[in-house]
């Protein structure tokens, strides 16, 4: 039996049998058959439920004459992300705002949930930032193909046709390195924040770890913003119109 958070224990208690049967049907043997749901998956699912509830609540209270606090917050966030993508891409950036907004809220809440005792940040495990980075990568590549068609591949060939032979491997490697750097940046910041808090907790249990938790909150906000900012920069590069 692995060490589980209380939410993971509840989910495993309810769904372990069906999930293990489902996994075995696709020839995947879970490491602990009585607890196929890991902490990371359970926390991500919790963040997903929380965000769906938040959006449903905001949607049901939308009003033009008397907007409430929740509507103001969402309008502020939406305007912030749309203004930033307009700065980088010019007009036509409004269709990317939903994806970027949800990505930012998901990463932000995933980072912050670790501060509450009894929960852990799913982004402190290496696979969750990898998932977010893969989503961002697939998104901007498909947007590039959608906007340019097959001519998107000309982006990889560099400025002149005879440079294409060396430019193509360099461009492919640099595109994959973007995914790697997004993943490692988010994971290392969250993991290092946890480690530093633990180290100081082992030295001085009272008072000092609170400073590091506050630092961790600041770093969570900044890293979520940086992830979305870099995704916007890559998107701008993919859908750019050659003048």
């Amino acid at each position, binding site marked *: 039996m692995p060490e589980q958070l209380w939410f993971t224990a509840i989910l495993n208690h309810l769904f372990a049998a069906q999930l293990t049967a489902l996994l075995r049907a696709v020839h995947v043997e879970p490491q602990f058959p009585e607890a196929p749901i890991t902490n990371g998956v359970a926390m991500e699912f919790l963040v997903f439920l929380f965000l769906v509830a938040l959006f449903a609540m905001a949607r049901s209270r939308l009003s033009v004459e008397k907007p409430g606090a929740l509507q103001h917050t969402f309008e502020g966030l939406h305007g912030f992300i749309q203004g930033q993508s307009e700065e980088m891409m010019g007009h036509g950036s409004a269709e990317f705002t939903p994806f970027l907004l949800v990505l930012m809220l998901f990463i932000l809440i995933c980072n912050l949930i670790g501060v509450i005792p009894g929960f852990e940040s799913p982004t402190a495990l290496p696979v969750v930032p990898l998932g977010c980075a893969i989503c961002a990568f697939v998104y901007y590549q498909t947007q590039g193909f959608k906007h340019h068609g097959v001519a998107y591949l000309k982006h990889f060939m560099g400025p002149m046709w005879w440079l294409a032979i060396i430019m193509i491997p360099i461009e492919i490697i640099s595109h994959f390195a973007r995914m790697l750097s997004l993943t490692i*940046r988010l994971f*290392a910041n969250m993991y290092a924040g946890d480690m530093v808090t633990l180290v100081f907790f082992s030295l001085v249990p009272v008072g000092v770890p609170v400073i590091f938790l506050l630092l961790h909150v600041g770093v969570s906000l900044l890293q979520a*913003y940086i992830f979305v*900012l870099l995704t916007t920069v890559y998107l701008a590069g993919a859908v750019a119109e050659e003048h």
Partner: protein
Amino acid sequence: MRKLSYFFMAMSFLCFAMPALAQGGEAYATNWVAITAGFSMAIASAVCGLAQGRATAAAAEAMARNPAARPGIQFALILGLALIESLALYTLVIIFAKVVR
């Protein structure tokens, strides 16, 4: 006579290598991974600190010269700081991958 004394001096130098044949202490093994981890993280953090200092200094000077350009400069500063920080974090990730294993 001088050649003989040189010969004996050379022979005596060869005896300095004797401890290499002695029984090495089994209970004493230098933990090179920990030492290297400490040095590499120190170097990475030091160079990261220098780079971020230069970036911040340039941004502060630019904001002082042209306060109206503040949003653009602030944006470039945050982006640059995060990218430099991530380079020091790559070192930390390698350390965790090697020290934990």
